């Protein structure tokens, strides 16, 4: 068990599946919860990741959340977590999972987003699942990692090439927010220094590296 920075999240590794449990107390707060449930009612497909056969989970390389997050319910959050991981994967540098982008987005949906954005993102996730079902005749969360990745990449391509309408607008906003959250995170900015100590405008790469190492001018 690993405690992540934000003590809301407990991460348990089960084979290739990560299960993250949110404190129950955060799930029942305020009117936002009511609004969310109203919109959930409009979803055409509500996928319960928790009912996926356990054997299947192991082959999907999918992180499944069994409890609701602050704004998103467990299924939505599983989906968000997966999409952001595909958008900004871990490579030789940290990815969106490392920067807790999905968790930050979930918090922002309460602290920053207006009702209209909450609705927009909720409907976007619903439509996303519907499109995946149409494309694969299967639940997105039951697809292989390869297929999920291909699907998100195709969505991105279509939206930016020819996309119009509510889904494309919502996707662009969703993507912009994901990028903002990740690239403004501490882990994505190892050479950011709150107090640089001064300014130099003409440094060689070697001189710059020495300053980075020292973390101060």
């Amino acid at each position, binding site marked *: 068990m690993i405690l992540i920075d934000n003590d809301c999240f407990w991460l348990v590794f089960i084979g290739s599946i990560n299960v993250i449990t949110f404190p129950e107390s955060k799930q029942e707060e305020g009117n936002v919860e009511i609004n969310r449930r109203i919109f959930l009612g409009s979803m055409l497909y509500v996928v319960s990741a928790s009912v996926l056969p356990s054997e299947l989970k192991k082959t999907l390389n999918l992180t499944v959340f069994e409890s609701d997050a602050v704004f998103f319910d467990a299924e939505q959050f599983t989906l968000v977590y997966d999409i952001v991981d595909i958008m900004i994967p871990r490579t030789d540098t940290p990815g969106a999972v490392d920067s807790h982008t999905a968790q930050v987005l979930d918090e922002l949906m309460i602290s*920053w987003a207006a009702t209209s954005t909450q609705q927009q993102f909720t409907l976007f996730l619903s439509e996303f699942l519907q499109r995946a079902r149409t494309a694969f005749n299967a639940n997105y969360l039951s697809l292989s990692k390869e297929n999920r990745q291909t699907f998100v990449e195709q969505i991105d391509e279509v939206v*930016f090439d020819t996309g119009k309408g509510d889904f494309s607008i919502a996707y662009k906003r969703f993507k912009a927010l994901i990028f903002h959250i990740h690239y403004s995170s501490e882990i994505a900015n190892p050479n950011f220094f709150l107090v640089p100590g001064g300014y130099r*405008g003409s440094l060689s790469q070697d001189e710059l590296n020495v300053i980075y190492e020292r973390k101060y001018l």
Partner: protein
Amino acid sequence: MNNDYDVIIVGSGITGGWAAKEFCERGFNTLVIERGRNVDHRGPEYKDFQAPWDLQNRGMPEETLAENGHYATLRKKGHLYKTDALHFFVDDKKHPYSSPEDKPFMWTRGYQLGGRSLTWGRQVLRWSPMDFEANAKDGHGIEWPIGYEDLAPWYSYVEKFIGVSANKDGLKTLPDGEFQTPWEMSYAEQYISNNIAKKYTDRHLIIGRAANLTSPTEEQTALGRGKCLARSYCRRGCSFGAYFSSQSATLPAAHKTGNLTVITDSIVERIDYDDVNNKVSGVSVIDANTKERRQYKSRAVFMCASALGTVQVMLNSTSKTFPNGIANSSGMLGHYILGHVTGVVASADVPVSEDKYAFGRRPIATYIPNYRHEKQDDANFVRGFGFQTTAQNRSFSSPNAKEKGIGIIAKQSVGKPGPWRFRAFMYGEVLPYYENVASLHPTQKDEWGMPLLHIDAEIKDNERKMIKQAAKDIQEILEVGGCTNIQVKATPENKHIPMGKQVHEMGGACMGKNPDSSVLNGWGQTHDIPNLFVTDGACMASSATQNPSLTYMAITARAADYAAKLLKNNII
């Protein structure tokens, strides 16, 4: 509480702080009245120790603010609409003003102790003799009653106290002053500057002149101010006191004397006038929280409430003698609203040969001072423009969420060093136009019962011609500078350019020699009433192209010295 003072200063911003310091240090019992809330220097409202990931909502103001129409002006400005310092700017839904629908005015304000001195740009530039002479020379506006020589010693006096990091450039158009160690130019900026110097004798790319300490003096250190550490988070408030503000410098200096009283949350409704003795007797204020009214009395009143704020209070101060606003026998109060205009934005790559980088966040830009004071063959306008510029850091490829691309390939393209990119923003002088006017709205009032200020101001043909020329000039300057991939964007003639967008609103109670055509004399003293002074931006008779705060401060210090002598000699 004793409500009698020697001097009342309305406003605690950049000029109010200076007036307070000068009077307190001369032994006068001084009251500063601030309409906004108290802010503690180095207190919890300063967000300068928050990294980008620590900012509330990652820097994004709650969406409901925009949905409900809050911060309309600030949202249009974009870069200031962030959670790092939003609390230091006024929400115009709570504090409305009006302007004609076809001439929207952008009024950026800061209602807190220290006013806009907490969030200002800190570029401190002296005016040249030519700037003071311009009105008389080309006949626009009211002739300045003072010249550069009158102000020069006060520029020096102010610069020594506030701390100005700058280079002595030896330019006639931008006189040198009392400077600390300048910030260094980046490799790319120096490259352009060197190339420009080879070709031109009148155009120069120089490092900006910043009110950020690089070599603190004993006096500055004694006030708790330290060296700037290149964070460039100045508008959040600086816990090191490294940039000049009322909070970091003038108000602490005034406090040290024991002669200063500050009251906050107090909106000056009117300046009280004694018809019999032709003197102001003090001010009437409205408590911002309880809305109770009370009065303070004094021997002299200094208006330092920002150009438009001061005009609003003066217009609202009517009496039998002055039915159209106090000290307004000329009828000029509210007229000649001035400002700066940006109609050209340019950018270009700087193809330097060496692989160089920058480190740190320099708190000031580079600058191309106005080089068009003298009408030149290719100019069909008067006055001129300069450029605020920068290439302080090399560009690095950044993630572009607005374009196609996700996954490993998109991610791997992020963070790679790219070319140095130079950017330039035109800063042009808006001519003094009598018809650019601020008045009181005939019917609408704010929640404290004050009539709204109605600002009817626009740029005209001269400024449009300047924009065209500035676009040509910057193209040529960047070519001479050795740049490539030059992109110049000029605002089309049919697109409205709002006054106030560059924040530097001025005028409305202009200085002048003639009491029939101006509100103030050369000391910032109203022609009509000897113990009423205006030394904020309202006193300006023209705007030049330089950032104006240094000139406001010098005018204030000079006026306070003059008024102090009058007070000591019981002349006022």
